[in-house]
């Protein structure tokens, strides 16, 4: 099995695709995280494109102690602004929220803040989120003069469901112990799904045959954290005798784990899916997040957990104490690696990953 070279190239340089969109007259909507329903953007005839931190340094507009990931995302939004017709920022954590504040004063493009409730376990939040999604729909309709029809929205949901199901089915091959779908391949496909038109990426995934990827004896790991776009982190795990069998990353399983239920009321179905999906450290009861990590480590027979933490990432840094305590009780070893720029710190990270894998018995 081999992931097509255009997908691998795209993950190294996602901005390269922007020229193609520009040349073909596609209107792009840049979005910041997996709480933004791409379905609504697609149903408005627009192309969603997730803004990463790849290729950018931290922005000079933020202080040095603010999450370097959010800061680099801001930098990319402003640097690549001309390629986009508008931006959607989700209120997930403080830096992402304040990134909206800064962007509001710095961009001339239409900008929308999606207020994602923290609480995921009550009807009040669900009702509020439904109204927010209606507001988002109105923003898209008004700013781009497009009427979003419920039937078209239902078709977009089906398209995104197909993408999520494909990604999850590949992922699930790892849980029986027979196959070994390496993390680098899985992440290539997940990231490409956030950038390429869904029909195109779905067709490419369907054409892949993973069944020749046989299991080996590498140390099985779970990756905990937020968004990881730098796939060198996956590479060094493989090179050090590890196998990232599962993850709870925003660019990994959290992106595709849950589908939208079929419904005659697509906005309600979207609100339900996006609020009750696999939890992010910024949303929902901490118990749900612990349970998700616990489920993953059991399901994928994990021997160790690595937390990749952007330095100054508050949600991960608080949660990591409780995740570590839970894993210790379950007899699973864990390690936190924090960084500001993984590309520049790869040597140090590799040394730590090697030592961790060796200590488990790799």
């Amino acid at each position, binding site marked *: 099995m081999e992931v097509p070279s255009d997908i691998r190239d795209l993950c190294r340089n996602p901005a390269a695709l922007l020229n193609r969109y520009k040349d073909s007259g596609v209107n792009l909507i840049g979005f910041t995280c997996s709480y933004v329903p791409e379905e609504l953007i697609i149903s408005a005839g627009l192309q969603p494109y997730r803004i990463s931190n790849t290729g950018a340094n931290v922005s000079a*507009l*933020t*202080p*040095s*102690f*603010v*999450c370097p990931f959010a800061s680099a995302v801001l930098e990319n939004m402003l640097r690549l602004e001309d390629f986009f017709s508008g931006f959607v920022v989700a*209120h997930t*954590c*403080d*830096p992402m*929220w*304040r*990134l909206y*504040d*800064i962007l*509001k*004063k*710095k961009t001339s493009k239409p900008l929308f*803040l999606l*207020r994602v*409730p*923290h*609480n995921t376990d*009550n009807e*009040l*939040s669900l*009702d*509020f989120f439904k*109204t927010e999604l209606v507001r988002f729909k109105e923003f898209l309709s008004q700013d781009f003069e497009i009427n979003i029809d419920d039937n078209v929205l239902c078709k977009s949901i089906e398209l995104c469901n197909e993408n999520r199901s494909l990604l999850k089915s590949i992922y699930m091959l790892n849980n029986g112990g027979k196959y070994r779908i390496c993390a680098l391949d899985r992440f290539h496909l997940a990231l490409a799904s956030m950038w390429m038109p869904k029909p195109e990426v779905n067709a490419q995934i369907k054409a892949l045959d993973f069944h020749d990827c046989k299991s080996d004896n590498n140390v099985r790991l779970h990756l905990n954290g937020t968004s990881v776009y730098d796939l060198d982190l996956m590479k060094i795990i493989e090179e050090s005798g590890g196998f990232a069998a599962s993850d709870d990353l925003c660019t990994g399983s959290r992106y595709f784990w849950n589908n939208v239920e079929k419904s005659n009321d697509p906005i309600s179905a979207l609100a339900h899916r996006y609020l009750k999906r696999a939890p992010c*450290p*910024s949303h929902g*009861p*901490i118990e749900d997040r612990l349970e998700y990590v616990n489920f993953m480590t059991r399901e994928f027979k994990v021997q160790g957990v690595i937390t990749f933490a952007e*330095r*100054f990432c*508050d*949600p991960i*840094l*608080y*949660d*990591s*104490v*409780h995740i*570590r305590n839970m894993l210790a009780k379950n007899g699973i070893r864990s390690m936190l690696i*924090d960084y500001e720029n993984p590309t520049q710190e790869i040597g140090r990270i590799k040394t730590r990953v090697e030592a961790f894998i060796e200590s488990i018995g790799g």
Partner: protein
Amino acid sequence: MSSQRERSRVLQTTRKIGELIMEYFSKAWDAKAQGKPLAWITVFTPVELLRALDIYPIAPEHFGAMCSARGLALDYLEEAEKTGYSQNLCSYSRCGLGYALSGMSGLMPPPDILITFRNSCDVYVKWWQSLHMHLGAPLFVGEAPYVLTLEDLDNYVLDYVVKQLEQLVKIAEEKFGLRFEMERLVEIVKLSDKASELWLETLKFRRFKPCPLGGRDSASDIFPLVVMQGTDQAIRFYEELLAEVKEKANKREGIIEDEKFRLLFDGIWLWYAFDLIKYFEDRGAVFVYEPYSEAWAYRLDASKPLESVARKVLAMGLNVDIDLRIERFLESIKEYQIDGAVLFSNRSCKSWSAPQLVTADILSKKFNIPYLLFEADMADPRQYAEAQIKNRIDAFLEVLGER
């Protein structure tokens, strides 16, 4: 300058604040002994509602500020860090977690319930979840969505907060066998509104030249407005403060003798470094306006008590859109005849600090106001480079002097 140094820069009423704070914490233990439920709250929680329910609220943020001001924070910070909480996390939260992890035998009794509202700061939720994990106390997380336009104070956003307040009442009634009475809330709302009215009236006297109330006063005197809303004691304090400030203003008596520069301060104060205010004042610079001082002052309408409290929860702190916040900044510059702005880039408060450079740029371009931006931490003295900051203050005041 030597005569200025000898002179007190704190109002007589402000001198009583330490005693008031200690009494408030000591009464928390009394309440506990009487079997009243005690809530640990974050500072943008609807205190009026808790008081109406007869739940005693205490704020670990105050505890953190006080420990820092009295040089007692380090042990707690280190206790939290030993447990795995990074030094890059909010120092109030590390102080509160350190206290919780080291037995809770000091000023704050253990909580019966943990209540927070996600307003201005997402760290609140993570901090409160962590306390919940360590202490096992029940947790209520409410949320006040970011107010994007003033319409949000009347539409589905307000409705969402009102319903959460009703939910909190129901939980408190069920959990602690309490009975909520609307008449009681009405009375408390009236008292809270009065305290806000008095404080806002007091702040207006800072428009006077010379300014009768300085940075040291405003940083300290905010305490009753944060956790003591709805009490007679808070009103008595603000009446006394207003009378003193009014008298000073009428006598044209400033907090410093030779007022040269009138400054805006943006941020939470550095609690371990109050002497920094004196450093400014010794050089003729007085703080006349801080957004922080207005953060809890909100007029309430007793005819719509629940709605009014919900509106306050939404509009407090940094929870309103950047354009609305900048508008207030610009008004204040005219209102208080401000010569320069000091912006404290606070490592603990990323929510406050993140858009500060953009705000400063607008202040500077629109009003030609020079600004000084410096980095430190509000409660962790280990992040404070005193000599370097003082050098920058000297340079900033020099620029102001040359204008």
